[in-house]
């Protein structure tokens, strides 16, 4: 496919996506060759088949998939392209796995500027290169104007878990320590600050990042980690509730131990949001036996993506499976699942 030549190159400055780019004909072949392959190029993609073939290394294989529909497509600290790489790498890594490769499905809306598409695909390529995880296979579809919000990207990742590592959401035990890898709410607030009807000036940037390097360091130091999960949509509150239900335990956290940037805190005040429920894209929650907690915390803090890691609470026996929090004021409350969208208060 790399040998094909098209008499007129794609107009990556002024051009837009049209229905022919998804038709399966020459226009689609040109889009793939001059845009997708050019940026994402790697050995697996170069095989040029409808699938990429590779020999898996020894160990348990894990697979995960994630659809990305973020709006706006570009936000401070990232864009939908790098987000779609980081998001799936992180889902794979939360099993303690080393991610091997990704597959990406693109749904493009007619009218999307090719310049935007190129910027996004270049960002994906950069994220994949930095992570050392190639995009091995892909697919492109185009839908009519109004049927998608610019573009949607679904990525699927495959990884392999080192022998002896058994990380799963159902392994939290009473007494276990609960750690987070850094400040919460950065991504959600960064994205919201760019929404068209919410113009507030802020330097907050998305924390979007691939966490498999951090996870590898953590697993090497403490192979007996019980649970890992990245608190994306629904934030820390939702993740802890998921883990509590899966493990049939309760949790107790301390509000004053949870790291939140002052500017995120302030933006949440403004918007009537609770940082515990705001999305993250470069943070993880770890649950480990109490005797491993300080070693794990030290390893996390030694890694650039875990520099602000903190011990925020403990797992308790609780038939109700509640996540409870001692507030910074000294009172107590339940930290429930997120209900609906997190909506701003009006007065």
């Amino acid at each position, binding site marked *: 496919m790399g040998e094909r030549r098209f008499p007129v190159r794609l107009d990556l400055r002024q051009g837009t996506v049209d229905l022919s780019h998804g038709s399966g004909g020459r226009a689609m072949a040109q889009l793939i060759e001059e845009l997708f392959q050019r940026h994402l190029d790697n050995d697996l993609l170069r095989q040029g088949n409808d699938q990429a073939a590779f020999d898996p290394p020894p160990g348990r294989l894990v697979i995960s998939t994630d659809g990305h529909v973020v709006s706006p497509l570009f936000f401070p600290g990232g864009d939908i392209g790098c987000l779609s790489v980081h998001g799936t790498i992180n889902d794979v890594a939360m099993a303690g796995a080393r991610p091997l490769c990704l597959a990406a499905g693109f749904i493009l809306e007619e009218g999307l500027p090719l310049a935007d598409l190129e910027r996004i695909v270049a960002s994906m390529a950069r994220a994949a290169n930095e992570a050392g995880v190639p995009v091995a296979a892909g697919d492109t579809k185009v839908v009519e104007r109004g049927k998608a919000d610019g573009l949607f990207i679904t990525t699927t990742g495959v990884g392999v878990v080192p022998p002896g590592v058994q990380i799963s959401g159902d392994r939290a035990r009473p007494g276990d320590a609960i750690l987070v890898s850094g400040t919460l709410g950065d991504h959600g607030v960064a994205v919201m600050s760019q929404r068209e*009807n919410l113009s507030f000036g802020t330097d907050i940037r998305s924390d979007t990042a691939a966490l498999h390097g951090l996870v590898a360091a953590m697993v090497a130091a403490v192979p007996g980690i019980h649970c890992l999960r990245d608190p994306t949509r629904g934030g820390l509150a939702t993740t802890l509730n998921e883990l509590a239900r899966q493990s049939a335990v309760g949790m107790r956290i301390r509000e004053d131990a949870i790291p939140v940037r002052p500017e995120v805190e302030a933006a949440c005040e403004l918007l009537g949001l609770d940082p515990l429920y705001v999305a993250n894209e470069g943070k993880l929650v770890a649950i480990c036996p109490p005797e491993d907690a300080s070693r794990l915390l030290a390893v996390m803090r030694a890694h650039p993506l875990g520099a602000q890691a903190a011990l925020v609470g403990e797992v308790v026996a609780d038939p109700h499976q509640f996540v409870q929090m001692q507030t910074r004021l000294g009172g107590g*409350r339940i930290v429930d699942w997120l209900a609906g969208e997190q909506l701003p208060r009006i007065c």
Partner: protein
Amino acid sequence: MRYIEEFRDQGLAKRLATSIAAEADPGRTYRLMEFCGGHTHAIFRYGVQDLMPFNLKFIHGPGCPVCVLPIARIDQAIGLALDHGVTLCTYADLMRVPGSERRSLIKAKAAGADVRMVYSTQDALAIARADPGRQVVFFAIGFETTTPPTAVALRQARAERMSNFSVFCNHVLTPPALRAILSSECDDGVRIDGILGPSHVSTVIGSAPYGFVPAEFGKPLVIAGFEPLDVMQSALMLVRQLNRGRCEVENQYTRAVTPEGNRKAQALMAEVFELRETFEWRGLGHLTGSALKIAPAYADLDAELRFPMAPGEGREVKGCECPSVLRGVKDPVDCKLFGSVCTPENPMGSCMVSSEGACAAYWSYGRYRNPGPVALEARQAPGEAA
């Protein structure tokens, strides 16, 4: 000073809790109504009740603008969006409030109506400017806090001669609601010893309009800020008034509230709005002189006049106790629907929608599961008075 964490400081909270515990007379109870949903939210979110002595109870008042909006008005708004094909701009909390037969604006949006969530009246104006061929209606609700921004929008629309913008006005007034609560106190059996008065509302109307509370009803009122330490300090001020037999309007929220309030905002409201003869409040019924409508000078921007609207059905869900919860007569847990068929994901009544609604606060922050282990622990925290 960063104006956030200073008002949530644990050390100060402990000292206030100790003072309240020392001041409270164990031989009596203190039933304090916090008027505003903002107070209710702070009490639950920060676990303020855990820091109070056992004989001090917060009664949750009707000051949640989403909660007191009658179902009929929601029905009318849904009708505007669906039948008149307008772009309806609304504050987000309103999207999920159930109307008759469990319709809602969010369901109307899913059915194709153009309903937009906005953060301010300025967003609604911007939407109207961007599409002059389309009728844009701002669904205005709220107490005196949100009224001045609506007045500004109406003046701007007039100045810009916008013919595609109008306001569906549902603004209500705080003092008549307070009067209604205190007047019905005896009939319903809600006993209130003192009131934590509105916070943001009072920045606009000032502290003077509350004089009737001690004068006519013999209850102390302390204007209280929305931060947890504001609520605690105000509770202490009320307990002291009650113990010393004083009965006055006091102002805890001095950093924002003056006796006369914001004169400029008041003048703006007087120019753009006039009193409605009567208006229905959810839970409180029809109250005389309790709401605003758009003044004749701005009548051409009044959505109620521009679009023929049938009176909404206003059918309550059977068994929903929102009206009693709003008056403080019942706790959310006294409602049969609470937590069974009515949850924040699937609200039957308005009090389960807004984070300022008592039912949503009970459910989300788990007070109905009282006493939880954390709560108990907090009560016995070292350094606190027994």
